[in-house]
């Protein structure tokens, strides 16, 4: 479904991704963890070309992503949930959800609204359809953002640290929605620091450090007997609390 081949990314002099190779199968729930600055976010952002790799290839559903075809390939295959929600503040929640379906996916207003109400039910926020996003709490905004991603009905959803900007009390309401999504056929790639979520939901966990993938495996393998010393260190610190 998603394949990165020898992906390198430079920001100026900074070499943030070093020869990353990664394949995500259809329906797989992949969790990427690692310290800040390890290249996790950049890896996910390369998958929908928010960052274009300096070298290497990205394949989505068999098609190589290029600067020319990215708009179409992304539209048809990928959605994204951001750390900072990025809802459109000048539109009501309902309009946020129906914009792409009506303008990009050829749905009528009625079809798009039906879809929007359905996914508002999924995230438990049907009563917020007519408010503006800035009136909502962070957790609610993120659940709306997830509903917006679902409205595109793409097979892949990328989550770039979806709970990192939330206060501790609202993290769980967002994770609960994501856990429920994980039962679906959707392919999910999640960058997160939530180890509980990774353990519960991931089919596979990838650990990145210094722009490289240094360990990957099932959650059991990963959380019980990690081989790499750097991973042991990281988990030791993060799991203590």
């Amino acid at each position, binding site marked *: 479904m998603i394949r990165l081949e020898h992906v390198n990314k430079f920001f100026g002099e900074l070499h943030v991704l070093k020869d990353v190779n990664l394949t995500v199968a259809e329906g797989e729930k992949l969790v990427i963890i690692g310290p800040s600055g390890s290249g996790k976010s950049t890896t996910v952002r390369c998958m*929908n070309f*928010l960052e274009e790799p300096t070298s290497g290839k990205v394949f989505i559903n068999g098609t190589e992503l290029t600067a020319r075809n990215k*708009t*179409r390939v*992304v*539209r*048809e295959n*990928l*959605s*994204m949930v*951001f750390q*900072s*929600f*990025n*809802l*459109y*503040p*000048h539109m*009501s929640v*309902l309009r946020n959800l129906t*914009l*792409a379906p009506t*303008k*990009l996916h050829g749905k009528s207003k*009625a079809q798009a*609204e*039906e*879809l929007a*109400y*359905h*996914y508002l*039910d*999924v995230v438990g926020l049907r*009563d*917020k*359809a*007519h*408010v*503006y996003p*800035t*009136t909502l709490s962070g957790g609610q905004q993120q659940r709306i953002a997830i509903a*917006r991603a*679902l409205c*595109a009905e793409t097979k892949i959803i*990328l989550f770039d640290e979806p709970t990192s900007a939330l206060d501790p009390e609202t993290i769980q309401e967002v994770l609960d929605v994501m856990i*429920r*999504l994980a*039962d*679906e*056929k959707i392919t999910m790639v999640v960058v997160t620091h939530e180890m509980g979520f990774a353990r519960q939901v991931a089919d596979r966990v990838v650990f990145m450090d210094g722009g490289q993938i240094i360990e990957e495996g099932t959650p059991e393998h990963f959380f019980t007997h990690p081989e790499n010393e750097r991973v042991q260190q990281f988990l030791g610190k993060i799991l203590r609390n």
Partner: protein
Amino acid sequence: MLSAFSPEAWARVWAFRDTFLLGLWTTVSTAVLAILLAFSLGLLFGLFSTGKIRLLRVIARVYVEIIQNTPIVLQLCFMYYALVYAKRSIGIAAAGILALGIYHGAYMAEVIRAGIEAIPKGQFEAAQSQGFSYIQQMGYIILPQSVKVILPPMVNQVVNLIKNTSCLYIIGGADLISQTYSFVTGASTGGAYGPAYIVCGVMFFCVCFPLSRLAGRWEERLKVRDRRAVAAVSSGPIPRRVIRRGQKP
């Protein structure tokens, strides 16, 4: 010569009121067309200067710098006299509209560029990640949010453009200033300087002042809108039945 505020002077202005109304009409119609041109150029070059294509960014930069760093009177003379000498005269009215449109287009381009750049990067990324093309991103997501940033300086440009129609005087236009000047210096009409320029000024003020006020109100409304929470019952129909989409929870 008449005393500036004598009743005869006012009577003379009143007698020739059509001259002033014609001038006002020329000024307003020239301004409207020039505003349309300026806005189109501003939007186009504003998008160029925030886009990804280097060549277009350079073109936008060159346009803005050349226009902003030479006087409008020069541009107007060039547009009119240079073309007359080249035997390709386009007429006073067209030269005026073009010159004013191009001049204020450069300022509007900068206003629109600043408005686009004021929108957080996350909005572009969200739009891109949904698969909106560049033009769609601008049309649906970025520009509607820029409006409240763009509006005050934009109206400022519109007001300046209306006032700058007075430059048409230099190429012999029929705008309000030119008409007023002809009136006060005319052999048969001359002398009523005070009332004539007061009337001319009042006319300009009556056009420009409401515009400024209107823009201020509109801007306030947009700011309020962004914070507004509409009660679910107050707008939009809620479908009576929501069909379950099988596989979803």
